[in-house]
């Protein structure tokens, strides 16, 4: 086993944990401090024709990409051993490329719309622009790895032997630095871009993705809330103002 250099340790053992820490603490902090700012900040009121195509295209694409990542990174290769390797690879590449291209087209349209539609442009904050840089970078680099590993432009690369092993090892608290260090540069850069995206995530509008309202399907249509005596309300009791009786 080769010795890891400092840079390798920083990138593949320190950065992942920094990412997890910043993401987790950031999300909790944002939720507690800034519930009011936790929103999609929809811009559909300003413009609805472009967004009708762009937003679903992007979102469905990115959700497929997320599922792809889960399958590729989280599920060990042995578990899918029953599927012929070539078939699995072909499937992954085809679906991955479709999802990636949808996402990219979607986001290009979204950015085009942000830039060219007057009201949408004036409603774009610095934070949005900053976020878009990281998001686009991660998506583009991701597509590059897909093409690189696909075998279309040279030998295929099976990241599930290396990158995926490293990814899971982080969560076993035993990061396999060498697995990642030996993988092709495109994978390394994409992984770094991905981690940076998660680091900024809690501080951008992307938080909306974590409030996907699945509970809607299960709750009764009409919601009642009361201020009954047993409902403590959102504000904690203050010293000297505790209630008497009851």
């Amino acid at each position, binding site marked *: 086993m080769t010795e890891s250099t400092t840079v390798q340790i920083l990138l593949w053992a320190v950065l992942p944990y920094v990412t997890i820490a910043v993401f987790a603490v950031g999300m909790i902090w944002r939720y507690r401090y800034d519930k009011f700012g936790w*929103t999609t900040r929809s811009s559909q009121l300003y413009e609805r024709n472009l967004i009708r195509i762009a937003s679903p295209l992007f979102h469905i694409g990115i959700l497929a990409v997320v599922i792809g990542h889960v399958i590729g990174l989280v599920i060990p290769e042995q578990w899918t051993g029953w599927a012929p390797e070539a078939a699995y690879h072909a499937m992954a590449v085809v679906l991955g490329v479709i999802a990636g291209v949808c996402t990219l087209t979607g986001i290009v349209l979204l950015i085009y719309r942000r830039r060219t539609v007057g009201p949408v442009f004036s409603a774009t904050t610095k934070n949005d622009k900053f976020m878009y840089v990281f998001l686009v970078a991660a998506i583009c680099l991701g597509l590059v790895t897909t093409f690189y590993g696909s075998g279309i432009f040279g030998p295929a690369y099976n990241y599930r032997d290396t990158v995926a092993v490293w990814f899971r090892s982080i969560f076993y608290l035993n990061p396999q630095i060498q697995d990642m260090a030996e993988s092709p540069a495109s994978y390394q850069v994409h992984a770094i871009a991905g981690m940076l995206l998660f680091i900024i995530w809690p501080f951008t509008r992307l938080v909306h993705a974590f409030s996907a309202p699945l509970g809607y399907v299960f709750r009764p249509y009409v919601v009642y809330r*009361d201020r009954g005596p047993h409902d403590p309300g959102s504000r904690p009791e203050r010293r000297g103002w505790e209630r008497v009786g009851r």
Partner: protein
Amino acid sequence: MRVMAQMGMVMNLDKCIGCHTCSVTCKQAWTNRAGVEYVWFNNVETRPGQGYPRTYQDQEKWKGGWVRTKRGRLKLRAGGRWQRLTQIFSNPKLPELDEYYEPWTYEYDNLISAPLGEDTPVARPKSLITGRPMKIEWSANWDDDLAGGPELAPQDPVLKKIKDEVGDRVKLEFEQAFMFYLPRICEHCLNPACVASCPSGAMYKRSEDGIVLVDQDSCRGWRMCVTGCPYKKVYFNHRTGKAEKCTLCYPRIEVGMPTVCSETCVGRLRYLGLFLYDADRVTEAAAVENEQDLYEAQLDLILDPHDPEVQAAALRDGIAPDWLEAAKNSPVYRLAKEYRVALPLHPEYRTMPMVWYIPPLSPIVDALRDTGNDAEDADNMFGAIQSLRIPVEYLAELFTAGDPGPVLQSLHTLAAMRSFMRDENLGGQPDESIPAAVGMTADEMFALYRLLAIAKYEDRYVIPEAHAEVGRQLEELGCSLDFEGGPGQYSSGTFGEASGRPTPVAVETFHALKQRQTTEGIVDVADADAKVNLLNWDGLGVPLGVPTVPPRSPESS
């Protein structure tokens, strides 16, 4: 039976002069902020007319409210839950800003800063959305008083509907200029489609008083409620990315004060009071098969607070004795259920709206007077009401899903009251047969007259205070100034204008007022906190785009 209380409103359309005072005072109180420039929680629209937002009543187009499925269940017109979730990335039925209007200000600065020249400088309109010069082509009440009538009014969805039924006669009678004003706020429905549309469960109906509110901390900006509400009374704040709506001025209602729109109404035509209703039967009532039965079904939900059985059930279900007392004296209960003169707006949307309207008799009286007849005579009026079929059908389309019966009944009662009281005022013998013709006694007629014509403040507003023992949980009661940051510390959070804790309304208003009262000269426009617009401008703060005149130095004056 599960008894719940609902704060309801009745508006007597006969008295509305279309002055928009209610809209303006409401705007000053609630929507004078960035992001809601285009929003009017209270708006007054001329009927016939397109309304605000344009043609909102056309549910084929906007898909608001509920529909009854073949199996007799209720479903949101915009689609079932799964369908709505798949449409979350882009809501296909969201009105665009243009459907409301693009808010603007004027470049006043140009009036004094333009260089000396041949031409008089002008203040060009400038969009409050893009900041660029714009052409004003529409606003919240562009077709006020039938402005642009021949062109715009025919687009009125209600008119279109009756036109299908009676053909060209609409045009004919329309030219006799039948017109009235319809002030609208949120209906605080018993079966609110907005609440049902909200994927995050951020919208709710308060179980104490039925006020429908948006929890600003839970709203995630999915903007489904805007589509859900058939009255288009939920608005999207495009700066904060959150939904906002009429709050029925809950901070005032909680302390027994009428809403701002009611308090400032020039015609003194608004009534506020409690309804008691049977919450268990709401869904069933909203799902009756025939649309024209919805009015009766809705009335049927409303319980008689004088009935001992209802009283016992109310006390059992936690309604306080003073609230029960208020329900007994409720003007809205009397107008809607006892006298049946007040009717719900568009019951066919199946949301069980709780703002009721007394249909206007005056257009009919006016028409009658124009023919040279005695317009205060009961028989003449009954005859006129019968013969003015189009106005009656129009009103029926608004208030009873097209069934002229209840509208006629209400108009007849009003006509009877008018002529009965004329006889009385002229010192004649009150003619008992007039109230009898509409199924009332002379005493009831006097009572109705007191309520509608004398309309004393304490008769119009019977608002029980919220209970102190639950007061701590009320949204705004208590010392609203003691929250993080404290008074004066309020600016925006780390993530820009819309982030951080929202400033409670009372605090925001307090600071805005203080700033305006204490400012010496003119506020710095570059100051991000200067939330002043033309509507609350009193010459001290600066509306956007207004010149910043430096205070004169002593020497120059």
